[in-house]
């Protein structure tokens, strides 16, 4: 098990410049929490210091807290470390700044998918048209308050059909 020197150095460097809360999980994995206001300035700094590959953008729906949590997974080819940034936004009015000016079309298409699945508005993203679904009238599908099993039973299955009665148990 090698010592986690470069990961600790990275964490100290970021904590010195921005107001964050972070930890080193294991070798090559560093996690950092930041507020919505500091997100763009931190991303700009990280892109300049070598984190040029954005691996994924994801949204987690914390229904009990009433918040969405955005996570950005960044990989640096030089340092060989994965840095994850987490930030929270309000669930009733989900608006977040877009990172597509920094990571170009890579970020733009990830945000387009998150807009369709969760309903998050990204300010600064020029194309938020639906990606996968055609003529979808319901709520954003991946939110926790949309129960799929109930939806499938109502929409597709028939309780009187004896073969499908098993889905209603």
């Amino acid at each position, binding site marked *: 098990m090698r010592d986690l020197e470069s990961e600790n150095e990275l964490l100290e460097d970021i904590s010195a410049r921005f107001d964050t809360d972070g930890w080193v999980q294991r070798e090559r994995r560093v996690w950092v929490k930041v507020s919505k206001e500091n997100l763009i300035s931190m991303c700009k700094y990280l892109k300049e210091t070598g984190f040029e590959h954005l691996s994924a953008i994801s949204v987690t729906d914390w229904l009990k807290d009433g918040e969405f949590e955005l996570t950005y997974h960044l990989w640096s080819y030089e340092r060989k470390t994965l840095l994850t940034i987490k930030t929270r936004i309000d669930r009733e009015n989900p608006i977040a700044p877009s990172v597509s000016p920094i990571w170009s079309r890579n970020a733009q298409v990830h945000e387009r998918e998150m807009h369709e699945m969760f309903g998050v508005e990204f300010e600064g993203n020029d194309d938020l048209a639906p990606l996968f679904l055609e003529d979808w009238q319901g709520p954003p599908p991946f939110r926790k308050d949309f129960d799929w099993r109930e939806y*499938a039973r109502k929409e*597709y299955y028939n309780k009187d059909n004896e073969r499908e009665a098993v*889905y209603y148990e």
Partner: protein
Amino acid sequence: MKKESPKKRKMKRIIKAIWIFNWFNSCGFAELVPVVGSRWDMERFGMIVTGTPRHADVLFIAGYQTPKSIKRAQRIYEQMPEPKVVIALGSCTMTGGMYWDSYNTIKRLDDYLPVTMYIPGCPPRPEAVFEACAKIFKHVEEMS
């Protein structure tokens, strides 16, 4: 000797060879393509894959369907000339299968297309596909 109707005589001549139009989604691709390949060769039975629905007799629907892709399949079905037959491959195609609780898959293919033959399995073996094609020959004969 029973006199055969002219239509039945014509059908017997036509069904020496069957042309198939593949409409496969994901899983169907990996199990249907070896059937055309060199180990499970389909061409020796007279079945060829064509690129256009206007020349096809059989529409092979393989893999789970979503509302977006079933619309395209219906349009293709309408473009095919009579007599035509639909074969459904895989359990996810017929009943929703493993994705029974997904909001975006078709759960009953019969509601959208008239299916003649069902091949269950996840995914079905190539031998099952052959048996289905052999039965198709008999069915087309009996259809008239």
